[in-house]
C-alpha cells in the first residue's frame, strides 16, 4: 500500500504510475478494485474552520470522526449525513471526508438538505498523470468557470484523487422529532411520505421500513417549532394509520442511514434511485429478500439472493433510475458491474472525460465503466 504524506508525493506516484491502482480513502465503502492500493490516509488535518462562515477545509484523508468532533464543539454538523458503511459491508477502518465526497455519500437528509455534492465547495485533486488541479473555493456561491467540484463528487476516484476538500457545514438544530405512521403497505407509505414532503413543515427525512410496517417522518429545528410541525404532521398523517410522535430518535435515523436492517444478513445489497412514486411499481418486481425505503420512496435498498440481476428485473418494469451493486462477491461484481451501464451518448461523454483526466487508466480503472 502506498501512503503518500503530502500532495506532492501523491502527484509523483501518479506521474510515474504504469499499472492500474486501487484508490482508497478509509476503504470502508466497498469500491475496491484490483491493483496496488494508493491511500489518502496520510493526507490529514483540518486546514481551516470558520463557524461564522459555515465553512471548513480539510485534507482528504481526515477522518469524518475527527471533523464531526470539531463541528460538534461549535454546535454544527455535516448536514448531508454521510452513511457509515462499515456495518453493512463488514469493512474496518475509518471513513474519510474525501471518501464520503468521492462516493457522494448522502443520507436521509438528501431530500431536504441536498446530497454530499451540494455541500462540497472546493477541491484540490491530482489527475491520473500527476497534475495538481484546483477547482471551486471556500465560499457558498461560486460560478467562476466550470464546476469540476460536482464532477469530482461521486466520481469514485476515477477522474482524480482528492487531496483537499472545502465544504459547507450547518448549524446543528436544537431538536428533532419523528412521526411514525403504521401503514398497510408500500403504496400507503409512499402516499403518506408524499403528503409529508409536500407539506410546508420542512421534512428532513422520510423513510419506510416494510418489516415493521412503519413510515417515519423527521422534522428538525428549534424545539417549539419541532413540536408544532410534528403535531401538524401527526394530524395530517393520521388518515394513513396509527401515529406515534417521538422526540430525538437519533439512533433510528442513524440505522436508516446505515441500512442497519441488512447488517449481518447474507445476500447481495443494491441501492436504487428512482422517482418516489415508482417505488410502488418497482419493489414487487425485484423479488427481493428484504427492502428498505428512504427519500420518500426514491431510494430503495434491496437485499437480493446472490447473483440476481436486479437491473434486468428493473429494466422489465420500464422504471427510470439507476441501481448500484453495493455489496456482493468479487465474481458477481465482475459479472454485473457495480455501477449501472449508461446510455450510449452518456457513455461516450464519460469515457471522454476519463480519457482526459486519466489517459493511462490508472485511477480505479473499470469501476464506473
Amino acid at each position: 500500500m502506498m501512503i503518500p504524506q503530502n500532495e506532492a508525493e501523491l502527484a509523483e506516484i501518479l506521474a510515474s504510475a504504469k499499472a492500474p491502482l486501487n484508490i482508497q480513502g478509509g476503504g470502508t465503502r466497498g469500491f475496491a478494485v484490483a491493483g496496488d492500493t494508493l491511500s489518502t490516509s496520510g493526507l490529514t488535518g483540518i486546514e481551516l474552520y470558520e463557524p461564522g462562515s459555515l465553512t471548513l477545509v480539510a485534507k482528504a484523508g481526515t477522518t469524518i470522526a475527527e471533523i464531526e468532533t470539531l463541528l460538534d464543539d461549535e454546535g454544527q454538523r455535516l448536514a448531508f449525513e454521510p452513511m457509515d458503511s462499515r456495518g453493512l459491508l463488514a469493512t474496518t477502518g475509518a471513513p474519510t471526508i474525501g471518501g464520503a465526497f468521492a462516493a457522494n455519500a448522502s443520507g436521509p437528509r438528501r431530500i431536504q438538505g441536498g446530497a454530499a455534492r451540494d455541500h462540497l465547495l472546493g477541491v484540490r485533486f491530482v489527475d491520473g498523470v500527476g497534475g495538481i488541479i484546483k477547482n471551486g473555493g471556500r465560499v457558498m456561491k461560486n460560478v467562476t468557470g466550470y464546476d469540476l467540484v460536482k464532477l469530482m463528487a461521486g466520481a469514485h476516484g476515477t477522474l482524480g484523487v482528492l487531496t483537499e476538500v472545502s465544504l459547507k457545514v450547518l448549524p446543528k438544530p436544537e431538536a428533532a422529532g419523528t412521526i411514525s405512521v403504521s401503514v398497510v403497505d408500500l403504496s400507503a407509505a409512499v402516499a403518506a411520505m408524499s403528503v409529508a414532503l409536500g407539506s410546508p413543515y420542512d421534512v428532513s427525512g422520510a423513510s419506510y421500513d416494510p418489516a415493521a410496517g412503519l413510515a417515519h417522518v423527521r422534522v428538525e429545528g428549534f424545539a417549539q417549532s419541532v413540536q408544532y410541525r410534528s403535531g401538524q404532521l401527526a394530524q395530517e398523517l393520521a388518515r394513513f394509520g396509527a401515529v406515534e410522535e417521538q422526540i430525538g430518535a437519533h439512533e433510528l435515523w442513524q440505522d436508516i442511514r446505515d441500512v442497519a436492517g441488512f447488517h449481518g444478513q447474507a445476500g447481495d445489497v443494491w441501492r436504487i434511485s428512482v422517482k418516489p412514486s415508482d417505488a410502488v411499481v418497482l419493489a414487487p418486481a425485484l423479488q427481493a429478500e428484504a427492502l428498505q425505503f428512504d427519500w420518500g420512496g426514491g431510494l430503495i435498498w434491496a437485499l437480493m439472493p446472490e447473483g440476481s440481476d436486479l437491473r434486468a428485473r428493473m429494466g422489465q418494469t420500464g422504471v427510470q433510475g439507476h441501481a448500484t451493486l453495493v455489496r456482493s462477491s468479487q465474481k458477481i461484481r465482475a459479472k454485473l458491474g457495480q455501477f449501472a451501464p449508461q446510455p450510449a451518448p452518456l457513455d461516450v461523454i464519460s469515457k471522454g472525460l476519463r480519457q482526459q483526466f486519466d489517459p493511462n487508466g490508472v485511477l480505479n480503472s473499470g469501476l464506473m465503466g
Partner: protein
Amino acid sequence: MEMPSPDPAILARKAHLVRRLTAVLPADALIQDEMETRAYECDALTAYKCPPLLAVLPRSTQEVSDVLRICYEEGVPVVPRGAGTSLAGGALPTADSVILGVARMNEVLETDYDNRIIKVQTGRTNLSVSGAVEEEEFFYAPDPSSQLACAIAGNIAMNSGGAHCLKYGVTTNNLMGVTLVMMDGTVVEIGGAHLDAGGLDLLGVICGSEGQLGVVTEATLRILRKPEGARPVLIGYDSNEVAGACVSDIIKAGVLPVAIEFMDRPCIEACEAFAKAGYPMCEALLIIEVEGSEDEIAHQLQLITDIARRHNPVELREAHDADEAGRIWLGRKSAFGAMGQINDYMCLDGTIPVSSLPFVLRRIGELSQEFGLDVANVFHAGDGNMHPLILFDANKPGDLELCEEFGAEVLKLCVDAGGCLTGEHGVGIEKRDLMLYQYAPEDLEAQLRVKDVFDPKWLLNPAKVFPLSVTETRRASALAAE
C-alpha cells in the same frame, strides 16, 4: 473587451447557411435581416454589442438539434441565448456566429406534486415556473433578481442564485435532469425525476458551463411547498464591521434565515431617495427574513433581534404584517433601479468569506477614493455574495474603462480575501480576463479539457469564460480543421 475577429469564410457562406437552416426550420424561426438581427446584438451587458450573422428561434428539441448539427457541419460558432438578461455578456455574439434563442420554447411539460418536480422547456421564465405551481402552494426556489424576465436556460447556464439561496441553494441544487443537445446535434437525457443521476455527475458540470458544453432544451426542476409565512426584520448599524459581526453571530447561533441582505450608506441613500421606504440613515442596513408559522417566525425573530441588540443597533424594525414587510423590502428591491436613476452603473458579483466582510468593504471604500468613482454596496451577506455597484458616466470618454479597471480591482480583492470572481452572474466576457487571477493555468486547462470532450470543435460560445489567449490554439485548430 476584445472579441475574436469574425471568420471571413463564414461570413461569405451566409446565403448557403440560410438555405440549409431554412430547410429544417419554419420560416418565422430564422432571422437573417440585418435590421432584425440587431435585436440580438447584446444582452444586459449593453456596453458591448455585435449583431450576429443569423439568429434562430426554434420551438422544439428536434429543431435545436437540426440547427446545431448544421452549424457543426459548417463549422459555424453558435451562441446560445435564454432571455438575454446576462450581466456578464454571456450571450454576446460575434459577427460570424448564429444566435440560438430558446425563448419560444416555454411550455410546461409536466407537473408532478406527488414527486415534487416540474418539467419545463428552458425558454420559460424563472418566475413563471413558480407561477405554474402556485395554485398548489408550491414554488421553484432559485430567485435571481431578474426572475421576471430571465429564462431557465440562462439560469442553468450561469447556475443562477438569488436572495433566498442561503436556505434553498442555487440552480445546481434544484436541477434534477436535463435534455441536452450537443454541438453535433446528438440529444442526451441526463437525470430526471429521481435524485442523483447515475454515473459521473454530468448534470453538475453542465450547470454553470455558460452554454459552452451543450444547449439545454428541457429541464426537470425540484419544486417545494411554500412555507406558511415569511417576515423580515430591518436592522441598522453605524458601522459595516458591526453589521458584519451581527451576521456572523446570527449564523453561529444556529439560526438560518432564508435571506440576509446588506446595504451600505451610499446604497441606503440612493434607495431612500428613489423609493422612500423610510430607511434610517446609517452606515449599514441588514434585512433578515425568516419563514415558518406565525409562532415559528416570532421565535426566530426574537433570537435574531436579541443578538442584534447586543451589537447596539441604531434602528431595529420588525415587520408585523404584509404591509410592513413590503415596506422593508421596497428599498432593497428597487436598489438597482435607484442606481440606474442616478447614473450608469456596473454591477459586480464577487463572493467572499463572510468573515472578510468588514475588511473588503473598507478596502472598496479606499479604492473608490483612488479611482474617483462612487460605489454602493448591496449584497447577500449570509453567503458572502457581494454586489458592489460602481457608478460611472457612459457619455464621459474614458469613464467606462476606468470603471472596468476599478471593477477588476474589486474582484481581485475578493479573490485575495479567499473568495471568487463571480457568485451568481457568471464569467461571460466580463470577467474572462481575470480567470488567471483566480486559477493557475493548469486549473483552467482542466476545465478546457472538459469542453474538449463535449465540444471538440470549440464552436459553442467559444469566446467566453476563459481568456482568449488561453483558448486561442483550440479555437484556431478547430477553424483549421474546416
